[in-house]
Structures are given as structure tokens and as C-alpha cells.
């Protein structure tokens, strides 16, 4: 949890309102990647930004409780596996790496639809990997364990008095 001095009702409330919309927008960016600007990387970064916003507004504990760093690293590997697995599936069915047209018999759809679905699968994998990698970096760089001394110093009582309300 954040110490009392860093808590801010306005920022917490606005984050609570905004974060679902940020995440839906990230899913829109991922899903629309193949015919509008965006894609897996951009959507994954927006998802990680939503997690960073929770981290900034509410502190480390609520974020880590929802997505532990170990689970994040596992999901990062799963994302890379989805990406590479889609490519290898094309390779195994006789095409080049990421040659989505070869997925048409497997998925049971026409070739243009198979291309669209193949790109979609790759983007889901990239989005998952990017989100969790960014999240791991944020936790490693800005987590509480990174600088315990500084947090303890800035919330000490002397510092509180210095920053009290100025004389009117």
C-alpha cells in the first residue's frame, strides 16, 4: 500500500473510472491491428500502462495481488509460444513460417479468413508477451523493494511538518 502521504482521492477515483476504458481500448487496438494503426505491441503497451496506472494510484500491493511477477513471466513465455506456435503450425502444414494461408484446412475456413485469424492469433500472443514483459520491468524498476530507504525517509514525521500547509 502507499503511505498515507502519497494517497490521493482524486487520482484514485479517476483511475478507477478510466482503467476499464483503457483496457477495452487496448483490446480494440489489438483486435483492429490488421486494418488500422495498432497491433499486438501497441495494445500490449496500453494494457501495461493500465497496470502501471493502478501501480501509481494504489501502490504495489493491489497490482501484485492480481498479477504476481512470476505469473507475469510465465504469461510472457506463453505469449511468445502462441506467436511461435502459430508460425510453426504453418511450417508443419507445408508453408513458410507465418504463412497463414496454410492454416485454412486446419481451421476449416476460406484462405482470406484464415489469414485474418492467423494474424489475430499472432497479435494476441505478442500483446500478452509485451504486456507482461512491460509489467515485469515496471515492478522491477519501481517496486517497493527497489528503494525501501527512500520511501521510509520521505514519509517520516519531520518531513511531514516541513511540507505542511503554508501560512495563509
Amino acid at each position, binding site marked *: 500500500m502507499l503511505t498515507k502521504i502519497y494517497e490521493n482521492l*482524486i487520482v484514485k477515483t479517476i483511475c478507477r*473510472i*478510466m482503467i476499464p476504458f483503457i483496457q477495452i481500448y487496448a483490446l480494440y487496438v489489438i483486435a483492429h491491428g490488421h486494418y488500422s494503426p495498432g497491433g499486438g505491441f501497441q495494445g500490449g503497451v496500453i494494457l501495461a500502462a493500465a497496470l502501471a496506472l493502478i501501480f501509481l494510484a494504489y501502490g504495489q500491493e493491489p497490482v501484485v495481488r492480481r498479477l504476481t511477477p512470476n505469473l507475469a513471466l510465465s504469461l510472457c513465455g506463453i505469449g511468445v509460444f502462441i506467436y511461435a506456435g502459430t508460425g510453426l503450425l504453418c511450417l508443419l502444414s507445408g508453408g513458410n513460417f507465418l504463412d497463414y494461408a496454410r492454416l485454412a484446412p486446419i481451421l476449416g475456413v476460406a484462405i482470406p479468413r484464415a489469414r485474418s485469424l492467423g494474424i489475430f492469433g499472432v497479435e494476441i500472443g505478442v500483446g500478452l508477451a509485451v504486456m507482461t514483459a512491460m509489467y515485469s520491468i515496471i515492478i522491477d524498476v519501481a517496486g517497493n523493494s527497489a528503494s525501501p530507504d527512500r520511501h521510509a525517509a520521505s514519509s517520516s514525521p519531520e518531513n511531514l511538518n*516541513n*511540507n505542511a500547509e503554508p501560512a495563509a
Partner: protein
Amino acid sequence: MLTLSHLISAGDFAINDICAIVLIIGGLFFFFTSTIGLLRFPDLYSRMHATGKGDTLAVLLIVSGAICHHGVNLNSAKLLLIAIFIFIANPTGTHAIARAAYRCGIKPWLKNADLKAEERIDQ
């Protein structure tokens, strides 16, 4: 002599284009003034006062101009969402930065910085 009514009747500009031009020029004016404030004001709080308010209004005006240009369709609905979220997020960010600066002990700029607070009140 070219007047507004000539422009409308000539068909060169539709009325929504004229609204878009007026709104976007207004937005550019507020961007200009807030940038001057950012460059010329003395300390963090007054600079944030200029940019936090000016940029929010300027972005709203420019997005409104783009909505007027597009008319009523899906693109203008997306632009309306951009306007709503900037209207919520920009003041919140300004508030958070100013509060963090205040909590870090950055002193506001004062005209006679060498005087004590009590002496300044006496003047």
C-alpha cells in the same frame, strides 16, 4: 469584396467547415498562449497553471473542430470519446504533478522571495 455569405453561397465552404475553421483557430490560439505561459512564467506552479488549463481547452476546441468537419458518423463519435477522456485525464494529471511537487517541498514563486511570510502579509 468577399463576405461570409458569399463563401457559403459559393459552395466553397459548407457551414460545418466554417465552424471547424473557427474552432481550430481558437484551439491554436489557446495552444499559443499556454506555450507562451510555459516559456515565460517563473516557476512550476504557474507554468502548470498555464499549460494545464490552456492545453485542455485547446485540445477540446481542436477536437470539436474535427467533429464539425466530419459531421455525424463513427469517426466523430471516436473524436467525442477522445475529447471526454482528455477532459477527465488532463486536469487529473496536472493535479497529481502539482501535488507531488508540493509534497516534495518545491516552494512557490513569490515576488519578494527574501522576505518572511509575516512581513509579506504586513505589506
